[in-house]
């Protein structure tokens, strides 16, 4: 399993906010990709409804998932591929270790894959003495620096060209430069040697096709193609939901995926892989393994409130518009899945209570829903998670909020049920507020839970007379109700 640090959300968020370099990088990224994606949707020849057609395609796949996985596995096995159904992270990792061991693997090249981060595959293989090289440029940078990715599609977004220049000078022994083309070329050269020497390639899978029995990988760099083509063994790891029923479903989904991920019309490379190289093929791996991972997904599938989340194709469009992600960055989420998708998926995978800050530390602004290529209603699911955190939930083993918080809402509920009591409270607050207010009528420093607000912002003091009172006075005693 990946390291889980969701409990440190607030601290890590503060760290991200205090980092001016990160701040600039994030807003840059969001302006470029967030706006580009919106523009791409607006210009769709089929109109923006295409997103809802894509959503229906994803839902169809999820609703028939058992049939799809069976067909996918049968077809791949018929071509001589191996399919391993992994119930959890441990089973998946152990399987990969065994294959590597049996094949005498010493060097592995990896294509970027969130699901392998989720199961903690790299550390396990490295502990077996195998060299594991991440080959996506961003992932490679992050790995060389001993750091974690902070964005699903742009893993090294938190690093400047200066930092990367120093890193490459140090680790690759090249003269210091901060020129992106020169740095890219240095990585290209170093990684080309890795690709040629590797005896195993490990990739994820963007979206398999059940009908024909293929996995697919998408990339712009070509590294995933290298990892899936050159080494003698290829292992692809996929979350069990990442499959489409029909080949034609890809026509819509890949376009929207490219738009969501990088505001492109189409990813640079799409590869369909249906098994190992055929007997007279000139390239391709001798062995092909597909690992299909559950690891908590069937639990999400079983809950109608969250099943929609399995439509996600991990394009990161939601990260590119989220105003909270835009301030705090990906590390704050404490798990490979960050941003709005992480705020829903992570609690469901690692435990709702321990990841409570992820689903509560969002404003429900809804930008993610509009950016999602398959129109996933993330705010709806954040609200559902909050409901579980408030009152507890047996199915997800969620402990309810503490008695103090529950008491606050109970009292609030009584108060708003009785206008007279409510008025008394308003007046008391008004009197207190005027006592504390400055000359401008603003409150500058408040104690207790409101101190977080007043640390950076003023707060108006309650009015001497509520509007309801004023209305009654304007309209004569008793006020005007329906006439």
């Amino acid at each position, binding site marked *: 399993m990946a390291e889980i640090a969701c409990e440190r959300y607030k601290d890590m968020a503060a760290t991200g906010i205090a980092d001016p370099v990160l701040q600039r*990088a994030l807003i840059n990224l969001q302006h470029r990709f967030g706006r580009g994606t919106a523009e791409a949707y607006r210009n769709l020849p089929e109109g923006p409804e295409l997103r809802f057609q894509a959503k229906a395609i994803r839902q169809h796949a999820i609703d028939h998932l058992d049939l799809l996985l069976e067909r996918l596995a049968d077809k791949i096995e018929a071509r001589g591929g191996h399919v391993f159904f992994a119930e959890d992270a441990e089973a998946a990792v152990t399987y990969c270790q065994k294959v590597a061991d049996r094949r005498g693997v010493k060097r592995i090249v990896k294509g970027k894959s969130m699901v392998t981060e989720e199961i903690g595959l790299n550390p396990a293989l490295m502990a077996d003495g195998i060299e594991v090289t991440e080959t996506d440029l961003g992932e490679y940078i992050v790995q060389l620096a001993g750091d974690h990715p902070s964005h699903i599609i742009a893993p090294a977004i938190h690093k400047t060209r200066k930092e*990367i220049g120093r890193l490459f000078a140090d680790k690759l022994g090249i003269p210091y430069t901060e020129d992106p083309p020169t740095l890219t070329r240095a990585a290209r050269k170093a990684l*080309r040697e890795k690709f040629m020497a590797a005896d195993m390639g490990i990739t994820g899978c963007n979206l398999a096709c059940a009908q024909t029995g293929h996995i697919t990988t998408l990339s*712009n760099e070509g590294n995933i193609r290298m990892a899936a083509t*050159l080494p003698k063994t290829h292992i692809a790891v996929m979350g069990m939901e990442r499959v489409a029923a*029909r080949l034609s479903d890809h026509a819509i989904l890949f376009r929207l995926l490219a738009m969501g991920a990088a505001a492109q019309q189409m990813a640079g490379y799409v590869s369909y892989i249906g098994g190992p190289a055929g007997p007279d093929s000139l390239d391709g791996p001798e062995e092909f393994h597909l690992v299909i991972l559950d690891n908590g997904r069937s639990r999400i*599938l079983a809950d109608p409130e969250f099943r929609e989340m399995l439509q996600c194709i991990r394009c990161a469009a939601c990260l590119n518009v989220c105003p909270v992600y835009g301030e705090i960055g990906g590390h704050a989420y404490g798990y490979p899945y960050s941003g709005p998708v992480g705020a829903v998926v992570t609690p469901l995978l690692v435990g709702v209570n321990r990841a409570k800050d992820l689903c509560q530390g969002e404003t429900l602004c809804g930008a993610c829903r509009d950016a999602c290529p398959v129109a996933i209603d993330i705010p709806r699911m954040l609200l559902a998670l909050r409901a579980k955190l408030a009152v507890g939930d047996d199915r997800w083993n969620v402990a309810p909020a503490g008695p103090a918080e529950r008491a606050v809402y109970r009292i609030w509920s009584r108060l708003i049920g009785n206008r007279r009591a409510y008025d008394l409270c308003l007046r008391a607050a008004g009197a207190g507020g005027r006592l504390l207010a400055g000359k401008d009528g603003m409150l500058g420093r408040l104690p207790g839970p409101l101190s977080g607000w007043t640390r950076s912002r003023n707060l108006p003091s309650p009015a001497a007379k509520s509007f309801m009172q004023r209305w009654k006075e304007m309209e004569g005693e008793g006020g005007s109700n329906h006439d």
Partner: protein
Amino acid sequence: MTDPRRTSFLKRVRSALGNPLRDESAISAAFADPRPAATAALAKRMRERPPEERAALLVRLSEAAEPLNIQLVQVPDETAAVEAIARIVANSLPEWGGEKRAAAWDHPLISALNLQDALADLGVPVFVTRPAPDVDRGRVRRAVADAFVGVTSAEWCVAATATLAARNPPGAPRSVSLVPSIHVAVIRAEQVVADFQELYALLNAEMDEEGRGLTDAMTFITGPSKTADIEATLVHGAHGPRELHLIVIHG
């Protein structure tokens, strides 16, 4: 025979779905074309495409190719295509040093160009990926890695996105469009289709009509290799080819 892991995995998935009925009709519904009428209409439109519409597709292709940094060359015939390839080979240097070498698919259109003779004049040997039983894949890999230019064709080219699509049967290995620094793809104008809906309709039709299915691998290529991982600056040639030349033969 059946893998118990697979059985229990799929059982869990089915139970999460509420154990729906899985009879023959449910299975065929899961894979059926959701909009058969639209698919049929699309196939008809492609078959009956008039010449002026074909010309418009090429305009669309060149508009899509430009921002992607695809070098699009339109030529009247095979001879001109060979000349275009020779120019690319003559005017570029091997990225990793050493002698100039090329690799090319064993493919009817590419073989017709007779590149081995044409490039021999420039002193550039061409490795042709001819399938053979018990082929030494290590040797093929070295030969492709030694080539600085890889010449392939494609089955289709999508005008809307300038995407090349090709299945990879034995004579058309995927590494030729990937490992060399320069990728040259040669197609005929008739292979250009409008958009992804058309591409997938053709793929489906081939599956249905020939029962051939996809080969083990199929690759779509849209532009040269690129990355924006360093401060979101676009750089070409991350791992795959730095350049992509698309040669379209008319007539």
